[in-house]
Structures are given as C-alpha cells and as structure tokens.
C-alpha cells in the first residue's frame, strides 16, 4: 500500500491540474472565454509537465530502491562482522 502512495499522490496532482486547466485559461480580463489560444496554452503546459513527472518519479524510485538495497547490504555486513569500525567512530560532530 505504501508503495502506491507516491504514484497515487502524483496522479491526484495531475488530475487536479487537469480539472483546474479550464480555470487557468488566459488573462484575468476574459478568463479565456471562448478563446482557443487559451485552451491550447493550458493543455500545452500541462502536457509539457507530464513527461517531467513520469521521468522524475521513475528516477527517484530507482534511487530510492538503490538506497534501500545499499542499506540492506550494509546491515547484512554489519551483522556478519561486529569488528568493523563505526562509521562515526571518534568524531565529535
């Protein structure tokens, strides 16, 4: 369930963004009423953000997985050898 939390949050953000798109049209005088340019801009901007979201989520999940695997590996090694020096031994700050 926790694994789905982050993608779900991103998806919700995009759905909310899509719902807001109609209100985001053009200048504060006409709010884009009947203006195709305005809807073009709103959807163009949103579509530009979609690939960013996809790539960012993918890369951060990859890094997160690497960190978790690293942590597991360090813990395994620490369990196997208690004589290994502490990572912070002898350090005040």
């Amino acid at each position: 369930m926790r694994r789905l939390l982050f993608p779900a949050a991103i998806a919700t953000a995009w759905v909310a963004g899509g719902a807001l798109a109609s209100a985001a049209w053009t200048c504060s005088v006409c709010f884009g009423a009947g203006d195709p340019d305005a809807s073009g801009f709103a959807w163009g901007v949103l579509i530009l953000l979609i690939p960013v979201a996809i790539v960012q989520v993918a890369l951060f999940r990859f890094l997160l997985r690497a960190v978790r695997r690293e942590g597991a590996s360090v813990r395994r090694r620490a369990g196997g050898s208690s004589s290994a020096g502490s990572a912070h031994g002898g350090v005040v700050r």
Partner: protein
Amino acid sequence: MPTDAVAAPVRWGPTSLDPKRIGLRYGLTGAAFLFLGFLLMVLMRWQLAYPGEALPLGTWLGESRAPQGVLAPEFYNQLGAMHGTIMIFLAVVPMLIGGFGNYLVPLMIGAPQVAFPRLNALSYWSYLLGGIVMLAGFVTPGGAAASGWTSYPPLAIVEISGQTLWLVGMVFVSISSTLGAVNMLVTIIQLRCPGMTLGRLPFFVWGQMVSAFLLLLAFPPLQAAAVLQLMDRVAGSSFFLPSGLVVSGEIVEISGGGSPLLWQHLFWFLAHPEVYVLILPALGIVTEVITTHGRVALWGRRWAVGSVLAIGVLAFLVWAHHMFLTGMGTVISGFFQATTMIISIPSVVILSCLFLSLWGSRLRYRSATLFALAFLPMFGIGGLTGLPLGMAIANLQLHDTYYVLGHFHYVVAPGTLFAIFAGIYHWFPKITGRRLSERLGKLHFWPTLVLMNGIFFPMFIVGLAGVSRRLYDGGAGYAFARDVTSLQELMSFCAWALGIAQVPFLLNLALSLKRPATNTADPWSGCTLEWATASPPLPLNFPSEPRVVRAPYLFVREPNQTEDVEPQWSRHGSDGPAAELAETLRPENGATPTSLRWISSPRPDTGVTNGALALWLFLAAEVMFFGSLLSSYVLLRLGNGERWAVEGLDLGAGPGAWKAAVLVASSVALLLAVRRARVGRSVRALGATTLLLGATFLGARASELAGLASAGLVPRSGVATAMFYTVSGLQGLHLLAVAIVLLVAMVKKGGDRGSANRIPDTRPLRLVSIAWHFFVAVWLVFFTLFHLT
C-alpha cells in the same frame, strides 16, 4: 612526504579519454569563452557609460560595426545576445559541470574513469563545435545573433543575422549537455567504490548529480524548440509566427498560425533549471572549501542533500514566472508564483546549513576560503532579490529592468564565479602539485569583491527607477532616468577595473606553474577521496580500488588530537593517502590500475549495468524531446481551432494505418528475435525482418513526404504540414539511427556466436530493442494525432 615519483605525466593529445584531461580542456575552453564574454561586456559598457561617443580604437571594429568608432545599435544588440549566450552556455556551465565535474567526480567517488570515456570526449568536442558555430556569426555578413540570449521570436526569426548559426550551435551544445549528463549520472550511480554509499557522497557530488539530472531533462525541450525555430528560418514554417505579422509596416508573407509564446515556454523550461545547474555545483564547491578550510562538518548534511533533491524536482515547475507579462491567467500565474516561493525554501535551507556550519569552525582565511565566504552573502543577495520578481504584482514593475540584471548577475557573477575561483584555489594543488600564492590570491580577492558589487549593486537602483535593460543608451534619452544614468558610468568603470583586478590571479597561475612542484597529496588535510591519491592524480586515479569507511566532513575537535580529520578512506588499508603509499604507487612495485566495473553484470544495489542505465537515461531525454513536440502540437492545434486545417492536406487513416502496422510488425519481430537470442538461437532471420520492415516504413514515409511536397504541401503551407514534416522527419531520423545500431549489434552478436565455449552476449541486442520499441511507440502516438483525429 612528496610523491613526485608517482605524479602522472601530463599528456595533452586530442584523443585523450582521461576525464581529468577532458575536465582541464573544458575548464580552459570555458575560461577562454569567459574572457571573450567579458570583452563583449567591456564594449557594451562603453556605450552605456558614454552613449554615442566614439570608442577608443573603435574604428578597429570596422565601419559596419562601429561607424566612426561609435558602436552601431545592431552591433550592440549582437554584443548583448552573445554575451549572455557565451557566459551561460559556453563558459560558466561547462566550467562547473565539464571542468570541475569531470576532474573531481571520479576522484571523489573512488572511480578510475568515467562510465563512458568516448562519450565524454564526444561531449567536449560537440560543445566546442557548438561554441565555434555560434561565434562564427560575428564573421558572417549579417553579424552574430542579435535577438538576446533568449532568442525570442518573431524577432529571432525575421532578423537576417547569424541567428541560424546560433540555433545550429545550440543544437550541438545541447547534444553535448545530454551526452555529458548521461555520462555523469551513470558514473555517479554505478562507479562508486566499495563503501561509497549514496549517503556518503560528498555534497559536491550531489550537486553534480542533480545538475546532470536537470541538464538531461531540461535541454531536450530547447533542442526541440531550436529545431522548430530552424524550420521557421530555413523552411519557412510558422511555428512561432502569428498570423498577420507586421514588420516595418509591412505584412510578412507567411502562413501564420504559430505562437511566439510557445518559444518562451520551451525556452524557459530549459533556462530556469539552467540557473540551478549553475548554482548547485557552485554550492558543492563552496561546501567542500568551507568544511575543509573550516575544519568543520556540514551542518544538517541530510537536510542540505534533501534540499538539493527538492530543487531537482521543483526546478521544472517554476519556468513560467519569466512570463507573467504574457497574458497568462491568474490561476496559472498563481501556480507559478507559489512554486517560485516554494523553491526558495530548499535554497535557503542549503544556504542556512552553510552559514550554520561556520559556527564553531576553525576557519583558515586562505584565498579559497575568502572566495567561498564571499559567495554566501552574494548568492544570498541574488536569491533574495529574486523573490519580488517571483511575485506577479511586483514583476509588473520590475520586469525587464536593470533590477533583473542585478538579480541574476548577483547569482551568476559574484555568486557562481566566486565559487569557481574558490574551487580553483582549493583544488589547484591537487591538479598541478603546486600551491598558489596566498598573498596574490588575497590581492585578487579584495578588489574583485569590491568591484563586483560596484558593477551589480547600482543595477538595483537603476532598475527600481524603471530603466529598461535593453536600452542602447542606458536610459540617457529618458527624462525619468536622468537621476540614475550617472550610475552607468560608475558601473562601467568598475567593470573595466574588474578586468585589471584579475591580473594578480593570472600572475599567480603563471608564477606557480614556474615553481617546482611539491606534489603534496593532501595539502589541506581534506577528508574526501580526491585527497587520497597523488597530486596530480595517477592516470587511473588510484593504484587500487579505494574503500570508503565513513561519511565525509568528519573533523575531530579534541585539542590534544594530532589528526583533526577522519578521512573517508581507511588509513590502514591499501587505499591510504598517497603520501603514505608512495612506495606502493611506484609502477615498478607492481601498482595495478583499477578497471571499470558493472559493464557486463549489474551492480548489486542498483540492479542495472552501466549500458542499461545509460540507455534508460537517453530514453528519458527522448521522452522530454518528443514530449515537448507533443506539447507544441497540442498547443498549436487547440490554439488554431478551425484554422488548423490546411487546404488539400488529407493524411487519411488508411495510408497511415498500414505504415503504423508495418512498424508494429517490426517491433514484434524484434521482440521474437530477442527471445530467441536469450536461448542462444540465431536471430539473423528475425533481425533482418525487423530491419526490412523498418526500411519499408522509412521508405514509405519518405515517399509520402515527397508526394506532399509535389502537391505543393510544404512546411510553408501551414502549421499542420510543418508539424507533420518535422515530427515525421525527427522520428524517422531517430529510427534510422537505432536501425544502424541494431545492425551493428546483430553483427556483433553473430561474432559472439562463433566464439568457442561462450554464451552469446544478448545485452546489446536487448538494449537496442528497447530503443526501437520506444520510437515505434512515439510514432503510434503521433499517428493517432495526425491520422485519426
């Protein structure tokens, strides 16, 4: 103990693949561009201080550029456009990422090389070529690009100067950035030595990693935009030209239907993250200098790293604050205003971490420290003055004034350049084995600090008076600006004096290079891995693979301790400091260079090979590239409404469908080929089928475009035809490139099958097949848009 016996010989061959050599090349080329950019500014500053007066020796510039020694307005515009372009794209970013990054990142993570040395070299040559192409505009009849470093259309398209060269050069520079970013990311993620977990990475490396990530995702949209603007200039399309465009009182004969604001979106999508590309490596350098010379840990290191990552995400969500005056709605303006305020939080967190690190530190006030310390308030001023610009209401008043110039120059000039100087003073002993003179260093620092502020602080005053940054006379022709125009003279004087203030620095470099080398491995008692090897470092950095045992920046504070630093490496292993290992490092003692890892088997923690990760990163860049084209398509199509249709253009579902079916069939054949390869069976027939189907698709595509052209439907006919030509051509070129690589992979695999007792290596085939499927999928998306809607 000197270790000159193990100092690496310096070889400068153009084919050298050593990242240290390539890093130095980047650094020196960037410095040359920096000098050139400075010279352009010196000329502009004369005109701003003494508008209309003849420049000393101005006649040397030629009658077209400076009639009777007075700078021509057109030439002034070229100087402005090229100053910005050179400083951002050709000087500062290449010095920080290509120079410091290439030299130091492999050393700091304990790697012998970068992941892809040839790609790295190609990145440098592509950057150099791009820079030369851009500058070539100065010697063409129309002159260099003259529509600002932002190249806003319609001006950038209708002007006759070297804008085309600017665009071609930009494509090369962006290719260089993408290649460099992929190489840097794979190097950091895959080539960390044992014990160098992500949590133990020095802050400098985090800065480089997130900057590479920003470059990877931000440059493709500009690349796409540059291709579209090239189409507008060369093929007569109207991606960025609106209908009914009037230039010099005459209606321009174009199809119209384009949007100048589309360029702004795509340009700022790159250019705002580019600011963080400038700042994050600079913050990394300052962190290394302050912690090492202050003998202090980085306060709140986890928060600082988290903030860098947050900037990596948020940097893509703030670009439109450059466009508050374009008529955006209040909701979108509000959104970008909010994200701009939010992104200031991680920036402030990092700056606070650095300031708080100074508490209780034992600073040695060396030249490097002074520049790093000066960076903090300079960057602070640059950042805080940006907040009013991020608010739509204040932006209405301040937009395009000298205030904006002051703001971003504080970030880039006394900010980032001070970090670069700090880095040079800090790592010069590592790179050359020699120390720079502290006396000359301080003589360099103090005038530079005063003069930088003398140039940029008055800009806030001039800007608040409402003077536009783009005026040829610096505001002298406007009554409202008369009270502040005298400051232009002060700024110009400080700018010229700044050039003279760099003489001690150049003298320092020259004198130190003449002195005999001491080759002290660790002159500052540093704690990160680059200080564990000889100065200059060995050709493959370390005699054997280092082992990291702790996080960076751990300094012991007990007064009776002889050693005040716990370095990242083990002092007692075979990977200790070079000073302790002089004997072991001697080649005659059998020192063996380390080699690159994770080429054929996946790294256990990341689960991927270097090649696989590089491919996914390339595809990420391609997602951004084609995503930008898709965004442009949607924006223009919805924006044009009924005007989208071009008379006589009927792409039809049928002809498009059979070509798409051929493409899908090629993907299926490749999928089956990979399956067969996995069990060691021949893939020749299926591979050849894939290539044949791909060739059929490309041939049919070429024939379709030729048919359209013969019917008079060319890019000039309308935005719809222009988009079809552009997207078809780009997708076709990408597919052709992958087909060539696929052919090579198949031939290579055939060779592998012939090897006795060897399992055929299917990795290249599998990786190339992923790229193939991706470009097939890209076409299916555009097929749906072009043929079915």
